[in-house]
């Protein structure tokens, strides 16, 4: 199997590569990883991972800098049904648009948009809610059974760092959520494509479990 981590100048490519490599080795999987923006290589891959840190408009611009990249991604994911994982801003790009800095359209694969986290009131210790939502949080798993959640419980915690959250009326896309001031979708997707708002590559053993589940997930 060939896994591509899409290279469009996002800062955390190495971390994502390291975490996936570790999971592949631990699980004895036969899978090669390449970090690239080469359209031909991407078209010939089996699995696609889109990382993303920084602002939504910057990530979108980074993708647009490689001519034809977004079209190739949509073709491979929506039409050819390749297994896809979007991470953080990579997940956010799967939706209609974000209001970060300015209204920027995403790929429109899933329905919803991103607004700033409403940090009002105080937390259980009387502290003001801070934005970004930064740190380790647990998942609410009551929605559906999904292979990505194998062996993952509400005791597992994941590393989040983001200021914008998904607003959607399409509840069938929701696989897990988290709570920070209000409910925040954490794992979303349908069919062959999934997105995670948190960083599995930075979520220690809980992150490794999720990455392994995604790698082993049979469509």
């Amino acid at each position: 199997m060939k896994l591509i981590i899409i290279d469009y100048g996002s800062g955390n490519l190495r971390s994502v590569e390291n975490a996936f490599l570790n999971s592949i080795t631990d699980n004895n999987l036969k899978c090669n990883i390449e970090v690239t923006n080469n359209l031909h290589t991407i078209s010939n891959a089996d699995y696609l991972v889109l990382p993303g840190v920084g602002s939504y408009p910057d990530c979108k611009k980074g993708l647009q800098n490689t001519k034809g990249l977004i079209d190739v991604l949509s073709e491979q994911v929506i039409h050819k049904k390749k297994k896809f994982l979007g991470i953080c801003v990579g997940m956010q790009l799967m939706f209609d648009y974000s209001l970060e800095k300015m209204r920027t359209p995403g790929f429109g694969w899933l329905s919803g948009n991103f607004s700033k986290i409403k940090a009002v009131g105080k937390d259980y210790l009387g502290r003001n809610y801070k934005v970004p939502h930064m740190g380790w949080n647990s998942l609410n798993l009551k929605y559906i059974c999904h292979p990505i959640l194998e062996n993952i419980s509400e005791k597992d915690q994941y590393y989040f760092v983001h200021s914008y959250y998904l607003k959607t009326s399409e509840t069938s896309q929701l696989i897990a959520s988290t709570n920070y001031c209000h409910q925040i979708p954490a794992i979303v997707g349908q069919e062959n494509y999934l997105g995670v708002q948190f960083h599995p590559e930075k979520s220690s053993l809980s992150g490794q479990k999720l990455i392994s589940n995604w790698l082993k997930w049979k469509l």
Partner: protein
Amino acid sequence: MLSTRVIACLDVHGGRTVKGINFVDLKDAGDPVEQANLYSKTGADEICFLDISATYEKRKTMLDVISKTAKTCFVPLTVGGGVNNLDNFCELLNCGADKVSVNSSAVYNPKIIRESSDKFGNQCVVLAIDAIENKAMPSGYEVTTHGGRKNTNLDVLNWAIQGVRNGAGEILLTSMNADGMKTGYNLQLTKLISENVSVPVIASGGAGNPKDMVDVVLKSGASAVLAASIFHFGIHSIFSVKKEMFKNGIQVRGCEN
């Protein structure tokens, strides 16, 4: 519910970990890569590397330390010390750092916060503030640089607010009076900044035992606690700190019952 983070800090000089009392009289506490891995395995929520090397050549060794650490250590890594421009940011992030902290360079070139947060996102920019008590300042605290050796005539509260306005996504607040003393965090300083900025504040400087961590969270509203020496020399483990926090009603990672 969001867990309160416990961050292990490693002061690195020429590729080796050190920790001094009030930043002088350094003691060797080992290999940073090995230590970072041990910390992440024993429950550290983040690792913070602070490069205190004085020369460019020695700082180069830091890139190697980060690359090696990022290969096996899957928790967020923050790196600071000697970060003067966007190229420095780029190098560190490419090696596997998740966040970069700026301290002296932000004082001498305040534009670096705006430029780096525009380019890499505010989640990636940590404003590190070394505060000393100074009654002549409006907030009672003055920003210092160079490990507390140079005064800046900047008020800590104003500086923190301005830093957040310019795009810092987090504040790493060190009390230089408390640093290395093991007598507890500066609760008044931490509370002042936590209550007046919209981003998370990491309390640093002065941790002597797990109860100090509990106090700075409950009494000062810190989003995260950072310590170096009490972890290095095995005085207290990260687990014992988390257990104490959990016992006191603070949500932490990896301590359920």
